């Protein structure tokens, strides 16, 4: 453990390293972010309201939120099963599957987008077998967002499952708990904070996702147009005011998610007394 002596330390470089860090973050992140809100506030209030409550914008919020929610929920369920299997069940090829889980992190979003579209379009490998259209419908957006969010849930849950002591489960069993009771009373409470964090991370990523969605969604205004795409469309039409206002909405959503995730982690740390 780091054992820094209150404030006194003989280690040099505080001014230099903190200076570089702060200047860097200010120039690249802080100033542009402040600028976005300054630009937004330069719009008159009625104008801002008009832009962000426009029919097309509201349709895009509903679609983005809805699809992100479905995808993150599916990931929470399937991600839990996958994480449990990868940690607790021995089978040939487990290591390989474990490595593959990170694919959505490593694969560029545009590549994921065209690959998913090829597979889930009407004459794609899986699209053919399904018998109902997936690509170019909201369902396609959910597929892309599920793809992109899966590793968040699995990678957040895995360490928590590894930390579970199988002895505790055995003890519960010996003391007369049924499998269901052991799961609900012993396992689930221990994993819940990680599951919530993983869900929130996947949801947050899904809200802002662009590259993997735009190929499979078909991008029809009011029907399959996500908010990030609407921002890009406005930029391409040189509607900077519109793009800025929607950007502020999108950014506020990201901040709210970031805040909730920090809150969950703080709550967990307090409950378990570690940090």
């Amino acid at each position, binding site marked *: 453990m780091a054992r*820094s002596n209150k404030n006194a330390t003989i280690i040099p470089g505080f001014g230099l390293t903190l200076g570089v860090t702060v200047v860097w973050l200010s120039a690249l992140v802080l100033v542009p972010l402040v600028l976005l809100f300054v630009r937004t506030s330069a719009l008159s209030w009625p104008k801002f309201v008009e832009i962000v409550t426009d029919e097309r914008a509201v349709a895009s919020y509903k679609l983005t939120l809805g699809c992100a929610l479905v995808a993150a929920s599916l990931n929470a369920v399937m991600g839990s099963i996958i994480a449990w299997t990868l940690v607790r069940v021995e089978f040939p090829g487990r290591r390989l599957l474990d490595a593959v889980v990170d694919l959505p992190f490593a694969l560029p979003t545009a590549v994921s987008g065209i690959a998913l579209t090829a597979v889930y379009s009407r004459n794609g490998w899986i699209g053919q077998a399904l018998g109902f259209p997936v690509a170019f419908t909201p369902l396609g957006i959910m597929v892309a967002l599920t793809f992109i969010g899966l590793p968040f849930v699995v990678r957040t849950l895995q360490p928590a499952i590894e930390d579970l002591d199988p002895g505790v489960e055995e003890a519960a069993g010996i003391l007369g708990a049924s499998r269901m009771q052991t799961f609900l009373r012993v396992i689930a409470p221990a994993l819940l904070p990680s599951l919530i964090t993983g869900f929130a991370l996947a949801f947050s990523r899904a809200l802002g996702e662009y590259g993997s969605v735009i190929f499979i969604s078909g991008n029809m205004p009011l029907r399959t147009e996500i908010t990030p795409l609407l921002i*890009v469309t406005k930029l391409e039409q040189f509607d900077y005011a519109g793009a800025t206002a929607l950007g502020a909405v999108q950014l506020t959503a990201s901040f709210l998610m970031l805040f909730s995730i920090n809150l969950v982690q703080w709550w967990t740390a307090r409950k378990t007394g570690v940090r």
Partner: protein
Amino acid sequence: MKWKVLLIGLTVLFLSLFLLVPLAAILVEALRKGAGAYVRALLDPDAMVAIRLTLLCASIAVVASVIFGICAAWAVTRFRFPGKSLLLTFIDLPFAVSPVVAGLLMVLVFGGQGWLGPLHLGVLFATPGIILATIFVSFPFVARELIPLMQEQGTEEEEAALLLGASGWQTFMRITLPKIKWGLLYGVILCSARAMGEFGAVSVVSGHIRGRTNTIPLHVEILYNEYNFVAAFAVASLLALLALATLGAKALLEWKLRRDAAAAQREAGA
């Protein structure tokens, strides 16, 4: 036993439907018209320009991420100061922000009506803008790997070196760097993968000038939208191979770290 089979079945099915089948589809689609068409798509002059630009952006982004990462990790893990957790939140911010918003921020700063727009720096719709957008989305990777690592390692060895008369730079090069090299390498791998693959942010600032400001992912998009699927998937397969190499490197590093940890434990026990 039944439970195990069910769990394994569900895992394999889900990972196949969402990850493995799409991955295989890239390679199959890329080779649909044979190896000749595949190679032609990669040797196309516009593709070559895109590859060069991507490599340039990624190398600059990696250097930026390393410099920032080492400075941030040193400041955060070696000293106490007020506002540290706020600083950590800001380091993570680029990952929380939609790539589209990241691009929008660059437009607001450097665009025609932007904050620095009147200076006509020629950043937007040109290589510098693409480099900046790439740096924005990828710079936290090294810091995020180094901070937990250096936190855990503590400062005792550095303090000993300094007390024995080493300079700050010597201490860093001879004591700290060897201890963090694998974490650093891992951060570099993640950073370069993201830098080469970034699409949303770069798409907003690039202006899509074919043969001039297209990176590999943007080139893939153009080919795809022109219904030139074989070429699009051929170029995309380059990025897919890169992703597989990233996963391989990650698995290798994790294996090595586990082995080192096990060896250290044995030594401590002996």
